[in-house]
């Protein structure tokens, strides 16, 4: 009982305190950053509000299914809200929620780290922990779930040391995805293209124009990947996402010449700098020892002297020779060309469906999302809110079959569990940190993809599987193999028993000596001698759509066979035996559910 009170206190208190602390820490940098992101304005179109909701779910199970797609895991509170508002208004309500600001978390926690010792920094953990904080406890669940999807499309990764060395800016990049991810695609693409973290990750910062005398060529990295991964993809697509075939063959969207042409646009970009546009600023981000402390957050700036002046041809667009060179004009022409390409709607729309709802959407489903991208109903192209609505509200998002849905990635398997049981952070800082290790941890850490191609490719077909035989892709199977199948269960075994996250000893003067994220299982422990009721409760939380009878029976029978909690002696001398027996039963019921293939697939 004492423990439960303490938990609740730490979780809630921590949030409030941090909110205050970070408000004080809000810097001009962040204001600048927010203003920059707001600068171009969002296209917002809302369904007419005020009318009675017309799409109340048929059941709580249906509401929970929807929330599995739209959040990091269904909770009682969100199910109640969807039941009250209906799907559409719940989405609008989420859009209007205050945005979690990862930069604020990072700065607050970095200040704490610095106070703890000279030279200390929260570093990468500040980004990762802020992700977990918003995933587990953030009010803007839909926005953050979309941002998590976008972070796996517009990939920057802290596996690259130029990126991990600027983790404050990575927190800001995640904010950019969360913010512009529900704005206009054109602004999102520009934000991504100009963010110094993308500049470092795909080597477009400090990139110079060609030198015809020495033979130096522009770096092509960002030019290529921005077409292949961030906008149009490799093949011309029909509006329904199927490849357009000519003579039975797909048509490639760009050639090497297009890459070389677009690469010229991404020359001459470097940091914001007080002495702009001096050579030293372009080359070293500083002049005479003076630099902009927020140069890693602010959009990159075009330096005409280093920008290609000659004609630039790509994707049918021709930018005439410029005198003087005009990087901003080149950028606008390039991003407009990409944004207007007919592939973007089906290319991006299909991937968002795959990340939120189902790995194998029908062509009709993709077509409807692409149509929403092309026109939000008010003649506006690229409205990401309209895209998200179309993804979540399509009839096929509500339907189920033996092939629909997606395999939850390891992070989503954990968040779904933690949210269902109300895990809270002892420190309020969601100290999770790096979960890269595939044997002892999840084999992936948010914002630490192995390459710009993400953890999981949208076209991945798992060899030798029933899915492959049926012609299905299962992107998240890319990281499932014998090692990770076993280690996932091992990680959950320990999470159920000990909690999630890094170990704390003293927290606020209290010796807790346990992992940072803990849940209150008192309601489950009270049912330990009633396996039937215990499984009612666990299946309602973890498989609200219904636990298959065979699985339910298997687990319930197993719990019944485990050592029963003995009667408590009046003296209380066997309290520990009683508690341990109860806890073992609850742990086993949770773990066997979490380990099941049924839990791992989001249907």
């Amino acid at each position, binding site marked *: 009982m004492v423990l439960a009170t303490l938990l609740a206190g730490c979780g809630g208190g921590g949030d409030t305190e941090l909110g205050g602390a970070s408000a004080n820490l809000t810097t001009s940098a962040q204001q600048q950053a927010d203003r920059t992101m707001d600068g171009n304005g969002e296209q917002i179109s809302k369904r007419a509000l005020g009318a009675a909701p017309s799409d109340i779910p048929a059941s709580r199970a249906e509401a929970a299914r929807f929330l599995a797609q739209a959040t990091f895991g269904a909770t009682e509170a969100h199910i109640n809200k969807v039941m009250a508002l209906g799907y559409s208004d719940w989405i609008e309500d989420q859009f209007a929620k205050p945005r979690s600001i990862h930069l604020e978390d990072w700065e607050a926690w970095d200040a704490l780290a610095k106070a703890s010792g000279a030279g200390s920094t929260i570093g990468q953990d500040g980004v990762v922990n802020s992700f977990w904080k918003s995933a587990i406890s953030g009010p803007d669940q839909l926005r953050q779930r979309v941002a998590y999807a976008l972070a796996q499309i517009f990939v920057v990764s802290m596996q690259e040391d*130029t990126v991990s060395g600027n983790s404050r800016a990575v927190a800001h990049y995640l904010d950019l995805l969360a913010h512009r991810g529900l704005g206009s695609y054109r602004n999102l693409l520009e934000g991504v293209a100009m963010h110094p973290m993308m500049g470092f990750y*795909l*080597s477009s910062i400090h*990139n*110079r124009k060609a*030198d015809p005398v*020495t*033979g*130096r*060529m522009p*770096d*092509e*990295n960002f030019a290529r990947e921005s077409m292949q991964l961030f906008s149009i993809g490799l093949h011309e697509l029909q509006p329904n996402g199927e490849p357009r075939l000519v003579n039975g063959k797909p048509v*490639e969207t760009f050639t*090497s010449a297009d*890459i*070389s042409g677009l690469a010229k646009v991404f020359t001459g970009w470097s940091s914001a700098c007080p002495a702009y546009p001096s050579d030293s600023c372009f080359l070293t981000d500083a002049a005479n020892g003076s630099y902009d402390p927020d140069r890693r957050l602010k959009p990159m700036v075009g330096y005409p002297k280093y920008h290609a002046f000659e004609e630039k041809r790509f994707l049918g667009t021709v930018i005439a020779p410029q005198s003087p060179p005009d990087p901003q004009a080149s950028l606008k022409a390039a991003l407009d060309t990409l944004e207007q390409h007919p592939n973007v709607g089906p290319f991006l729309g299909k991937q968002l469906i795959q990340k939120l709802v189902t790995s194998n959407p029908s062509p009709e489903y993709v077509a409807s999302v692409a149509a929403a991208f092309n026109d939000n109903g008010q003649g506006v192209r690229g409205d990401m809110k309209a895209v998200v609505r179309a993804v979540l509200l399509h009839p096929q998002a509500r339907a189920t079959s*033996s*092939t629909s849905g*997606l*395999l939850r990635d390891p992070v989503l398997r954990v968040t779904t569990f933690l949210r269902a049981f109300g895990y809270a952070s002892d420190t309020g800082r969601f100290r999770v940190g790096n979960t890269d290790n*595939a*044997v002892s941890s999840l084999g992936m850490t948010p914002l630490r993809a192995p*390459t710009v*191609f993400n953890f999981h*490719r949208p*076209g991945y*077909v798992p*060899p*030798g599987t*029933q899915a*492959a*035989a049926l012609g299905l892709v*299962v992107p998240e199977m*890319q*990281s*499932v*193999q*014998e*090692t990770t*199948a*076993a280690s996932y269960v*091992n990680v959950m*075994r320990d999470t159920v028993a000990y909690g999630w996250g890094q170990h704390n000893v003293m927290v606020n003067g209290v010796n807790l000596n346990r992992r940072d994220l803990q849940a209150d299982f008192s309601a489950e422990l009270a049912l330990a001698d009633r396996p039937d009721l215990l499984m009612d409760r666990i299946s309602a939380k973890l498989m609200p759509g219904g636990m*298959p*009878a065979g*699985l339910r029976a*298997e687990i319930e*029978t*197993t719990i019944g066979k485990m*050592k029963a909690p003995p009667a408590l002696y009046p003296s209380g001398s066997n309290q520990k035996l009683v508690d341990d027996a109860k806890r*073992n039963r609850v*742990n*086993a019921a949770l*773990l*066997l559910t979490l*380990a*099941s*293939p049924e839990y791992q*697939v989001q249907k």
Partner: protein
Amino acid sequence: MKPLTPPSRRLFLRQAGALSALGMAGAPLALNLAALGSAAAQTAADYKALVCIFLYGGNDGFSMVLPTDAASFANYTAVRNQMPDPIALLGPGVPANLAAALGSPERLGGVLPINPLNTQGRSFALHPAMASLRNMFNNDKRLAVVANVGTLIQPTSKTQYSQASHPNPPRLFSHNDQQNIWQTFKPEGATVGWGGRMADLMASQNTRAIFTAISASGNASWLSGETVKQYQIGANGAVRLATDANGLIYGSAVVAEAMARIVTGTRGGHVMEADLAAVSKRAIDAEVSLRNALKAPDHAYFGTPAANGGYDPNNDPKLLYDNPGTGAKSFNSLARQLQIVARMIDASDGAGVGAKRQVFFVGIGGFDTHDRQNRNHADLMARLAHAMRYFDNSLGAMGARNKVTAFTASDFGRTFTSNGDGTDHGWGSHHFVMGGAVKGGDIYGDFPVLGAKNAGNNNFDSSPNQIGNGCLIPEISVDQMGATLARWFGLTDTQLLDVFPNLVNFDASKRNLGFMS
């Protein structure tokens, strides 16, 4: 001309695969394979393994194997000495300048000359961080270079490359697709690779099919066959699923028994659940077999014996390499992957394993050196060289050198030109083949001409081998290199043509490159 694949044969194999997927494996499959014509190795008593070392990101072969004749090296130096961070390595014999920045060409010193049997009228060298491989090439003769390898559908000249009617591989210069084409001859989405096809044909030699195609580096399409499924092993061995040393979960045997049923079965009827359950079943079955078969990693074959069972791979001197970027020793994760491969090879004749033919896959990333190439590529070359030498040493201790052949593969080569501090996506590149059965100390394939960049265009008119940005048109196809390895592995001519779909487009005299004894 489209490659001709015997359709009935492919169909037959696919049907065999379908049968086994339906649970009718075993006898029908073996019968089918026998009916298809058995390879010599299908009755062989010897053991052979092929190990693919995949260099993710596209390795810069131009700075790994260098022609050092005056004209070639002058062009290399001129093209790659670009501001702000010149990436040209220095010529043979230039002493390392210990005052220069770590990882810089000056600090590394000149490239290391090698002495191929056939000099092709030129001279050659390796990257300065590859001293151990230079010795393996020159002295041990267990290392060969295959020059200018890449994805090809048929022989391709510079003129043909730009003709619309000429069949070039799809999606050139794209990472994920070229990785897949190297491994499967198809772009992303392919499910059958040539390592896996070889495993299909050889699996009947093995007691347990699961130990035929093994990855120490995540899922790789190269390893997937039509019937053989790849098995993934952890760096320290197989990972036990949830049970403790006594076979209990939370101290309970009934929970452990239920766990085994739950993770290996499915009650919901969903396809993805069934596929997950199949992986868990293999995980549990394989772990039981390997639990006692594998020697400890600190056995003298593969590691440095630790006192009191306290083995820490991160501090095993055998797994540490000289990091040119820091000047200190660093842990080599690629060597660690090759350690479990060596342990698996050592255990191949053990009870519960019983393998005569195995294909392995290991890999490291970071080769996409668009920027900071000097330091990053030197580090990668040092890791690759150390890991290969470590593996050769381990095989030597095991007495298994002649049974194991390792080779490098990568997405593609890179541009010859510099973008100021790095290189961009290319096509053909040079690769290593290592082992006791390799006719080492030589370069196989015509080494390409490295031309000068023309003032007026980017087409490297002075080289018949180079296109825009100085990328190489491959001279040798992945099919030819793979077929040469597969022939050693025991495949027949007929099987080679089946496994390597483009091989038929290359002259019969060039389907065996001759680097295997």
